[in-house]
Structures are given as C-alpha cells and as structure tokens.
C-alpha cells in the first residue's frame, strides 16, 4: 500500500494545489467524509467539466428524429457535431448539427427573428415533428424570448418546438440534465384530463428504461435481456427514442433508471405526475447486471418472470464468468483510478473493478451528488482518494502518489494518462463499443487487459530496449 497519510495529503494540498480545492478532496479513513460537491467550479482550476448545454445535449441528442438546433454562435454547435456514439434504428436526423450561427449584429440587435426563420427553414427542409432549441450562454444574456419564438413556431407548423434552457453559465452539466428532463417532461405531457392508459397491451409489464443513450447499441442489448424475461421496453430515455415513442412514455407501469445523475429528476416527476414508480438499476458489470435483472423481475412479483431472469443470468454468466476469470488472473493486484462524469458510473466501476481483481485507489466525478459520494465512500477501500471536479494537476498528483496503473476517463483525460505512462479506459459518450450487460462485462475486462498488460509499457518503464549514449 502506498503512503498517503494525513500529513502528506495536507502538505501536498498546501504546496501544489489550490487552497479552495481542499474541501473537494478526501482520503477514506483518514478524514471524515465531508466532501464538498455540487458546487461551482473554481476559476482557474482547469476543471474537466463541460457546460449546461453539454449536459442537456447529451441527454436529448439520442432522440433520433428530432431537429436539434443550437441557438448561439457557431462554436457551441461545432464542438458537438456528431461526437456521440448513440445508435439509431431509424432516422439519422439527430446526427446533424444545426446552429443559428449568431454573429455580432445578432448579438447586438437580438436574434429572435433569426431563430424563427431558422426553425421555419429546417422544418420545411427536414419535415420533422419535433424540434429542440438549445439556448447557449450568449442567448441567455441577450435575453431572447425562446419560449415565445418556440410557441409561435409550433403553432405555425403544427409540430412540437421545445426550448431547452441550457445557457452555459447558469450552472454546470447537472443543470443541463435538469433542463433536458424539463424538455422531455413537456414532450410527454398528457392532454389535460387524460390519464395514461396503463396496462393496455403490455399486460402491465412494460417499462421505460431511463438513462441509457444507446451507445454502441447498449439500450438494444438491455432491451433484449428484458424481452427474454417477458418485459417490454416501452421507450428508452433516450437511446434510439423517437418523437412518437416518447409520447407513449406515460403508459409504462414501471420506470427503471440507470444514470441517476441525469435521470433522477425525470423519474421523480413521472412518479408524481403519472404514478409510475421507479427502480434504480445498473447494467455495468456482471454483478450489477444480474442484480438489476433480479430486481426488475421481483418488482413485477411474477414467479415465471423470476425464473426466466434466473435462466438468463445463469446462461449468460456461464459464458462470461470463465472469460472474466482468465483476465482476473492477469490483472490481480493492479490499481485503478477513476475519473468520470457522474456518480452512478463511478460506483458501478468500483464494483466492476473488484470483479476483475483490481483495487481502486482514486475515484472522482465531474458532477456526482452528495448521496453518490456517500456510497462511494462506503464501498471504497481505506486510503482511497475521493474527489469532486478534479483538474489535471490533481489527477496527476494522486495517480502518481497512489501508484495507479490505469485511469478510466474521457477524451481529455486520455493523453494525460498516457503521458504519465498509465493505461487508460475510455468511458464516455463517444465510445463505439458496448460496456453494458454481460457482453459489456467481457468487453470491459478485455479492454482493461489490453491496456494494462500492453507490451508498450515495457519500453516506457525502461525494461525493454536501450539507447547507448555515444561518447
């Protein structure tokens, strides 16, 4: 075990790190768990966080047949053009990046007219029934009345035009999740006085699956599992969802929710509005996947469904377990650092690493919530560094200090890990291979193995090849 006691932690915070960041970092077992989180990023701390718009776009982007119009200057749209791995079984419209491309004059004189014209043109050209209009920072400041423009456009074209209040400065990525959920709630709202026709057609066994963006077909994988248990997936929020499929959301009898960071609010509201209860699930790793399938079957109190769930789990596990065991042998004793977007993913990863024999020595998130950090603290080993809204210097510091062999993170973290000679796992919305379910568990183990045990590290650690300096 590497040393990371109270004194050295404190010293290092003093010497190398920014004072205000101290309260965002704890070491399990050495300090009380009183980690600060859900706060604004500190100026100049090179936060890895993206913005409200980013959060909103992540959640809504997978709605395949919608026009996603970014109301703002070009950059915001440019950096988010088709960068996600969400798959569609139908329309490809969502893979376009539409922007009102505001220029100086628009900023000075207002851009409502331009927005209205933009919507007109897009609707005419692409013939869509649903438009999401994302507001960006500039729009938030110049005070365009997004609501009014969208309302007028909706009326004019007889379609739905939903504003997404995602100006970057009103908060961080979490505020964007919230803005996206608000937009979705508007979309699924029932006409006044109408109650959802529950059980019809589904025999009371249809669920909405919240918090899967169908990266590399993950939502399809889980839908297949559920189907084999006799559960119909009504609609996924929002992987491979469409305008019409979302409209039926209120008819499901249960919501299962994976990515709580982005979806908890939506799940709660749907319970209040439509009386749909929700279950927290996770399909990352063997353990979580099996437990979640059992939980869903149990929720329906149906012995036949439970039997089928057990059958599925037994069948899949039989295939997966031996493979995982093989990797486990090779990976035992390695140490991992985790830095991901949300708390749900971090928690699942800690467990998943255990499955393959790896100890987690550092874990952090961009936007984890208090209760998620509590869980992380509970399941972490003593000495684990837990941190919120970390920056490259902190990641560097703690990875080196704790002797991590591997970092899990997103695009920005990858080159840092590599420069430190540390293996890396991509766990972001850009990836092109599934990490969910049983197949995902194998992919994950294989990816970890391929990076941790790669021959390249022999050379970076000076154990292969040598250059003889000439006299």
């Amino acid at each position, binding site marked *: 075990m590497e040393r990371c006691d109270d004194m050295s932690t404190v010293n290092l915070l003093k010497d190398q790190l*920014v004072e205000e960041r101290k309260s965002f970092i704890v070491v399990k077992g050495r300090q009380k768990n009183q980690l600060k989180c859900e706060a604004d*990023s*500190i*100026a*100049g*701390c*090179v*936060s890895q*966080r*993206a*913005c*409200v*718009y*980013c959060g909103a776009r992540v959640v809504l982007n997978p709605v395949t047949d919608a026009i996603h119009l970014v109301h703002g*200057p*070009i*950059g*915001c*749209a*440019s*950096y*988010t053009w*088709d960068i996600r791995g969400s798959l569609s079984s139908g*329309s*490809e*419209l969502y893979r*376009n*990046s*539409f*922007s*009102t*491309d505001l*220029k*100086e004059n*628009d*900023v000075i004189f207002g851009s409502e007219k331009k927005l209205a*014209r*933009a919507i007109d*043109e*897009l609707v005419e*050209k*692409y013939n869509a029934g649903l438009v999401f209009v994302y507001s*960006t*920072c*500039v729009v938030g*400041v*110049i005070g365009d009345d997004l609501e009014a423009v969208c309302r007028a456009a909706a009326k004019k074209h007889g379609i739905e035009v939903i504003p997404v209040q995602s100006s*970057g*400065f009103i*908060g961080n990525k979490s505020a964007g999740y919230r803005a996206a959920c608000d937009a979705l709630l508007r979309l699924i709202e029932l006409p006044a006085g109408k109650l959802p026709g529950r059980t019809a057609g589904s025999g009371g066994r249809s669920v909405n699956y919240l918090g899967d963006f169908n990266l590399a077909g993950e939502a399809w994988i889980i839908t297949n599992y559920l189907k084999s248990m006799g559960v119909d997936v009504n609609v996924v929020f929002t992987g491979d969802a469409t305008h019409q499929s979302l409209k039926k959301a209120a008819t499901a009898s249960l919501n299962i929710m994976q990515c709580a960071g982005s979806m908890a609010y939506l799940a709660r509201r749907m319970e209040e509005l439509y009386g749909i209860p929700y279950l927290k699930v996770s399909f990352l790793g063997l353990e979580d996947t099996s437990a979640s399938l059992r939980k869903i079957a149990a929720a329906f109190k149906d012995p036949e469904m439970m039997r089928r769930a057990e059958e599925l789990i037994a069948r899949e596990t039989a295939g997966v377990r031996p493979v995982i065991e093989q990797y486990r042998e090779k990976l035992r004793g390695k140490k991992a650092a985790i830095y991901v977007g949300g708390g749900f993913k971090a928690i699942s990863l800690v467990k998943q690493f255990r499955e393959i024999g790896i100890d987690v020595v550092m874990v952090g998130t961009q936007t984890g919530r208090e209760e998620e950090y509590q869980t992380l603290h509970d399941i972490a080993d003593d000495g684990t560094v837990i941190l919120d809204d970390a*920056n490259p210097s902190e990641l*560097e510091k703690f990875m*080196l200090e704790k002797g991590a062999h591997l970092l899990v993170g997103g*695009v*920005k973290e990858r080159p*840092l890990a590599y*420069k*430190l*000679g540390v293996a890396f796992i991509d766990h972001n919305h850009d990836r092109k291979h599934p990490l969910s379910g049983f197949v995902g568990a194998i992919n994950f183990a294989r990816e970890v193995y391929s990076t941790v045990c790669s021959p390249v590290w022999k050379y*970076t650690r000076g154990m292969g090849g040598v250059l003889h300096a000439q006299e």
Partner: protein
Amino acid sequence: MHRNEVNTRHCRNVNENPCNMCMPMGGILPFKGIEQSMVIIHGSQGCSTYMRRHIAEHFNEPVDVGSSSLNEKGTIYGGAGNLKQALDNIRKVYRPRLIGVLTSCLAETIGEDIDGIARDYLHERGLADFPLVTVSTPGYGGSHAEGYWLAVKRIVAKLARPTEKHAGINVIVPNLSPADIREIKRILELMRVKYTLVPDFSDTLDSPYTRTYKKIPEGGTRLADIEQMPGAAATIQLGVTVDESISPGHYLQNEFGVPLYNLPVPMGIENTDLLVNLLARLTGGKIPVILEQERGRLLDCMIDSHKYNARGRSVVFGEPELVYAVVKVCVENGVFPAVVATGSRSARLEELLKPVVAECPLEVRVVNEADFTRIRACCRDMGVNIAIGHSDGKYLTEKEGIPLVRTGFPIHDRVGGQRLLSVGYVGTTMFLDRITNTLLENKLKNYRSSMYQKFYRGVEENNQCSVGS
C-alpha cells in the same frame, strides 16, 4: 432523414454542420507554442472544456486551459473577480512565464474590459513586468483562423521591443502540424538561417514520452527571442490569406520597419520554391544539394503518379491559409479542384484563388462561409471524387462515398494528426502520395465490379459450352 434521401435545398439562416470553429479556439494554439506559457478563457467553463477536448483529440496531448468559470453572478455583476482568481490559481499551479487571456462570447457580450482587468491585476499583485497577453476573441466575431492570427499578433505586440538590428529572420507560421513546423525548421537550418519561429508548438503539442511529466511541456518559442523580433532583418510570414489588421508580420513592419515577406504555406513545387529562393536571397547563401535532391524526388513522384491524379476531381476545405496551399498542390498535379470551401469569411482567399482557378480546365466553385451541407450539395453537382481537409469531411464520405484525405485541423477520428507531414518538398511528396493512393484505392476497390457492370452483357444461351448435359 434517412441515409439515402437527399435534400439539397440550403437554409439561409442555419448553419447545417459547421466547417469552422470559433475564435478563442484558434487563439489557444499560439499560446501553446510559447515557452512556459498558459492560457485562460474568460467566460463560462463549457467553452474552454470543449476547446480543450477538441485540441487534445487532435494532438493526443494533454491540453490544459484555464477558465474564469463565469457563473450567473459573474455574468450579471461582471467577471473581474473570477478572472483575477483564475490568474492567481493558474500562476500558483503552473508557474507560467506568460499568460494569455482570451475572451469567449459570454465575456464579450456582457462587455468585459479584459485590458482593464489585466492592468488592475498586475498592479494589485505587484507584477508590473509580467507578460499578460489579452486577446479579444468573441466566438461570434470570427472563425478559429482569425483567432489564431490575432493571438499571434497580440503575443508579438506584447513582447517585442525596440532592439538593435540583427541578422536573424522572423518566421511566422499558421496552424500547421507539429511535423510541418519541424520540417520548416529543418529547411531553415539547412539554409543556415538564424531564425525565430512563432508560434512553435512542434515540441509542446507533440512531446516525446519521458519518465517525468511536466505540467507545461518543454519547448515553444523563447520569450527572449520574441523580444528581439523587431531587430530582425526580415519577417517571413506564411499567411497570404491573413487580413492586415490581424497580421503579426504587418505589425512588425509598421511598428518597427521589419521588411515583410508574406508567403503561402510551402506546399507544392511553386510555393516551396518561393520559400527556398527567398531564404537564399536573404541569406546570400547557396541552396544545399540536399534540398535540390528533395525537389527532384518530388518531381519524380509527380511524374510517377500524374496519370492516376488526372482522374481526381477534388473538394478542398478548411482554414483559408491551408486551403490555398492545398489547392496549389492539386492544380500542380492535375487533381483539379471542383469545389473549394472555407467556413471562414475570407475575401483574400477568393482573390488569391482567381489566377489559380483560371489555370483549371474545368469549372471550380469557390464557397466562402460554407457549411458541410452546402459543401455536400456542391460536391454532388460537380462530380467530386476526392475530399481533402480535416476530419469533419468524413461526412462527405458517409453521405456521398467520397474518400477523404485527412489534413489540417482537427483530425479527431484518426491518430497522428500531429505527425502528418505536408510541407516542403519532402512533405509535399508524402502529401501527394496520400492523395494518389486514396484515388488508387478507391478505383481498385470497385474496379472489377464496376467494369463488369458496365460492359458485361452475358453470353448468348446457345453459345454456352455446357458440361455434362
């Protein structure tokens, strides 16, 4: 819309799939090419994170950029406090010798006076001499290309001071790959030129693996060298498309009387000749045999592949400076461009292209402020069969089956954008090979089936030789 449906009507009030990025994004790059420097975006957190991500993906290097992380309060009451805190924290953690402050749309929209804030800050902290370089880069004010040049100009303007005349030559480069910058330096060294090259991110954004990690990578143009630029014998700027108002070379000429030679990026025979000849003239030195050999090899390559290249009808897109250079290579080799597009607004590019286009035997369509939906429509009209530009051109491959030769910035769906060598005689040779091989690959891929479909009409029934009937 489904993959095969095509609607090429063009929206006038919408940018459909952007071909450019925003101004501060371009402004970050030059700061990465100055020794021990850091950069902060004054605005909300998201912009800087997006830009970092974009740059990091291209270079496969850590790209640390600060943000003043403006929140609602800062947006309403002014962001001076945030920016000062950001400066404090960046200085503490990175200990840079220079800091750049760029603005985002948000800061500009709320009317932040970054010069004033910077002045106050330096005064309050007793740092009168610290180089704090402010650059006003509203994202809506221009594309990343303009942001890049303006940042270079501001860096030079901040550091340059009147100095004694010396024999050195200033070399100012556009947004090239680190490999390209290294090649230009090699040519300068072969020509025995004493030079200051700005900005030099050939090491910082393509740094060798070493056992110890440095928060600010080694390398970059030395501050002391930039100070001496006004005394140089000449400035060579690879920036023929740059507007004078943001041109660092013009600044040095107007303020300090340094003669400016504005040249295109040395891609292609003619453009590279221009640079080498100028260097020979300025230094009075001979052109080394090795460069002559390299030129000869390029000619040899051009001959070897000219017939394959003759089948190419290209679309060239990206930053104006690079677009111009690539078009020259295309024309020299008979891969005549059919569509030339930039996401920026560049009147200069259009002017420059006129004589080049006139040389083309076929029609050329030049599109300023283009987006990819527009470019795609043009490609269909004009029968384009090869695309040359940055990664976003993959859209043309997916939608129209046009193969893409990746060059420029950003390249985020392949590795090695930072190692692509395309300048000088050697680089052009490699670049041309990439073009030719892409044409060949595409031709050979369909050769058997396309000839079969085109010409095979079957054999008469009764002529068929039947076995065993």
